[in-house]
């Protein structure tokens, strides 16, 4: 799907064994995911039902939407830790608007707030060159506080259209899943078909060289932060629509960690410049089935943490193996 880096194997036919090994390793993560699915399927009869798989897709939808934005940002070498709070602020703002000005207005306001926070991040980081981690950590704290100031009381019971939207299905598939698919497709489109996709990667690999060759680096960074802000807001709205409630204290709390994990699981290194969007999709899906499987199998909460940790370390190990094989092919 979304090849960000043309691999050697593609342009010059390598000896079949090694190229076979390489593609093999590249697909270890998907294979591991399938393996995990088989494990759960064997251990719980209802895992591999259409309903359950659709459910995983539905539950992963907000994560997927935000992860696409975060992946693009990370490919360009930047990071956004404010995601969870952006979801809360925009969810709360939308919630406040739903009841007074209607659903469409609420959605607009929610997305607008996300865009605004994204622009703020982008200006501070892209134009004023402030540290991405500190700035977005700051916005994370401030945003959560702001959300609670805006809505000290619980915010719930929106117009029925909200909940209906959260539960709606098209062709048997939940609308929210369609939205996620749409966003992934959009991301893939940008990365493969649009010039901007190359620019994102260039900035991630060598931002000075990108700047010197005339790519508007600051504007690109600004746009990416704006994108992540907007997608976070969208993710927040998706959660709100499903809950029919916008709990300012907990909405999206810790979401940035899940996003980061999914994106890193997807093999995008922190230093940027690499990665395939479809592997991020696998990363999100892996996290989704893990939570689902653990819930179904009623694993105790301690053990489920050990399990999650083990999966992460394993993912890192696979990543490592891939790295070694690629390297020795140098």
């Amino acid at each position: 799907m979304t090849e960000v880096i043309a691999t050697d194997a593609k342009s010059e036919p390598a000896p079949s064994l090694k190229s076979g090994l390489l593609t093999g390793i590249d697909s270890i993560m998907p294979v591991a995911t399938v393996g995990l699915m088989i494990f759960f399927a064997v251990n719980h009869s209802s895992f591999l039902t259409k309903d359950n798989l659709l459910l995983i897709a539905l539950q992963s939808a907000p994560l997927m939407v935000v992860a696409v934005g975060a992946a693009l940002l990370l490919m360009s070498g930047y990071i956004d830790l404010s995601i969870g709070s952006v979801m809360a602020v925009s969810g709360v703002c939308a919630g406040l608007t739903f009841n007074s000005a209607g659903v469409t207005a609420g959605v607009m306001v929610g997305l607008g707030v996300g865009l605004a926070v994204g622009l703020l991040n982008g200006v501070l980081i892209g134009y004023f060159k402030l540290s991405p981690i500190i700035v977005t950590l700051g916005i994370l704290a401030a945003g959560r506080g702001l959300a609670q100031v805006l809505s000290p009381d619980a915010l719930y019971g929106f117009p029925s259209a909200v909940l209906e939207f959260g539960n709606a299905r098209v062709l048997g598939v939940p609308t929210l899943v369609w939205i996620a698919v749409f966003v992934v497709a959009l991301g893939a489109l940008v990365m493969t078909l649009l010039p901007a996709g190359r620019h994102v990667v260039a900035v991630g690999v060598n931002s000075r060289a990108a700047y010197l060759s005339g790519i508007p680096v600051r504007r690109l960074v600004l746009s990416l932060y704006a994108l992540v802000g907007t997608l976070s807001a969208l993710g927040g709205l998706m959660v709100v629509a499903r809950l029919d409630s916008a709990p300012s204290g907990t909405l999206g709390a810790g979401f940035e960690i899940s996003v980061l994990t999914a994106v890193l699981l997807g093999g995008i290194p922190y230093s940027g410049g690499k990665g395939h969007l479809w592997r991020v999709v696998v990363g999100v899906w892996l996290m989704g089935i893990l939570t689902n499987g653990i819930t179904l199998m009623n694993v105790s909460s301690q053990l489920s943490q050990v399990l999650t940790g083990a999966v992460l370390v394993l993912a890192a190990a696979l990543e490592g193996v891939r790295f070694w094989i690629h390297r020795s092919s140098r």
Partner: protein
Amino acid sequence: MTIHGLSKSYGNNVVLRGVDLQIRAGRIHALLGPNGAGKSTLLGCLSGAVRPDAGTITVNGLTHTGFTPQSALKAGTAIIYQHLELVSDLSAVENIFLGSEQRTPFGTVRKAAQRRIASELLDRVGADFDPSRPLTSLTMGQKQVVEIAKALHHRPEVLILDEPTAALSSRETDILLGLITRLAHESGLAIVYVTHLLREVTAVADEVSVLRDGSVEWTRPTADLGIETLIEGITGAPVARAATATSENRPVQHDRPPLLELADFRASGAPGVSVRIGAGEIVGVFGLLGSGRTNLVEALAGARPSEGGFRLAGSDLRLSSPGIARRSGIALVPSDRKSQSLFSSLSAQENVLMPHYRRLSRGWRRPRVEQHVFDSVAGRMSLHPMSAGLAGDRFSGGNAQKLVMGRWLMDGSGVTLLLLDEPTQGVDVGARAELHRMIREFARESERAVIFVSSDVEELNALADRVVVLAESRIVGIVPGDTAERELMVLAQPAPSSGPSEVRSEGNTAA
């Protein structure tokens, strides 16, 4: 040092096929070969940066099958890499002693002693800057000197230099050549010297080996060799005229309106520069190390803040970023390839096309068109290996330089003013002639001009219509392109501090 049967391949790309070589103490052994022949790879095997697949290296009677950087140093080999491998945020002293610090009995660093020794080493290689300055404040050339001092500090028996003069001006080159001659003939070091500048070979080398396609073609004493034999050995073909072409039938464009006019153009705090450059002109910039050449071309490309008059093709411009400069048709190939222009992990095709994706697209990208454009540039530059998908950092130095040059020399790049900082560093003789030809062709197209910085007088003579000489960031002379080296050097000497600046500015506006 004896090398026997050394082999190395990357994937299915066989780089070294059983290299045999003998290097004797007290001799300077030049290693020549076209770009991508495997010279750097061979040297990497000797320094521990690359692990050979097969073969042995014998130093002082001890036979090794491979080195780590540490064991190579212990065995008595020290290297100066083609791409400088220094730590930019540390000072020169700290870099020189990195990994082999002088310690007190308590294990702490003896800073004063280190500083003293570093100063001595730098003196020895003819440098006079403060060794406690952080590396970021040094120019390319000064960094090169630090790298040499670092290698010498290990008191090696075999000193390996991979194109050490590619980024040096002729004065530093002379100092360096003098230095290695002394090291070889007086201190008895064995020296392996890789270069693409053939007059250096005839000047200092005792023996020459030519490496082609991963194996040694021949090894001969320098005394029997002429330049032609060397070129033939490297290119594998009889000397072509183009390789030695100089500035004949060069039209000087007095009649045409100037394409570029600089009026008191000041590059980030430097004194003002005024000059006019006509369409079709190729202007060389000459100066000593640190004379402000890089500063000037970077400012012209919008990469550094600047003030003053800048008029291109009749319109006044304010260059606030490379992006804006680019849209006005100005492009730069910086001299520091690794950190300023190459996208190391991106493919060759992406490296060449990066600034052009938008232009080549119709909203969405057109892979076939992209492929076609790349193939035609790569073909014209005879890129080796001719592989669109290979990552930028897997190309040899000269071929990587072709990638970043090809970025702007391609057809329809939309560039009218091309700025080149050391455009052919690390490019072999054959390919250099080819690049020169392409630069000339580029400039001949309507309404274009090229400004290039070069430390290599031969190159200036071969390419430039006129040469602007800089000293302390001021224009101290504008001379014809075929001016002899001696004359250029005299001009480029920094003036005594009381020098009358009016005299210089007179020459500045000559066009």
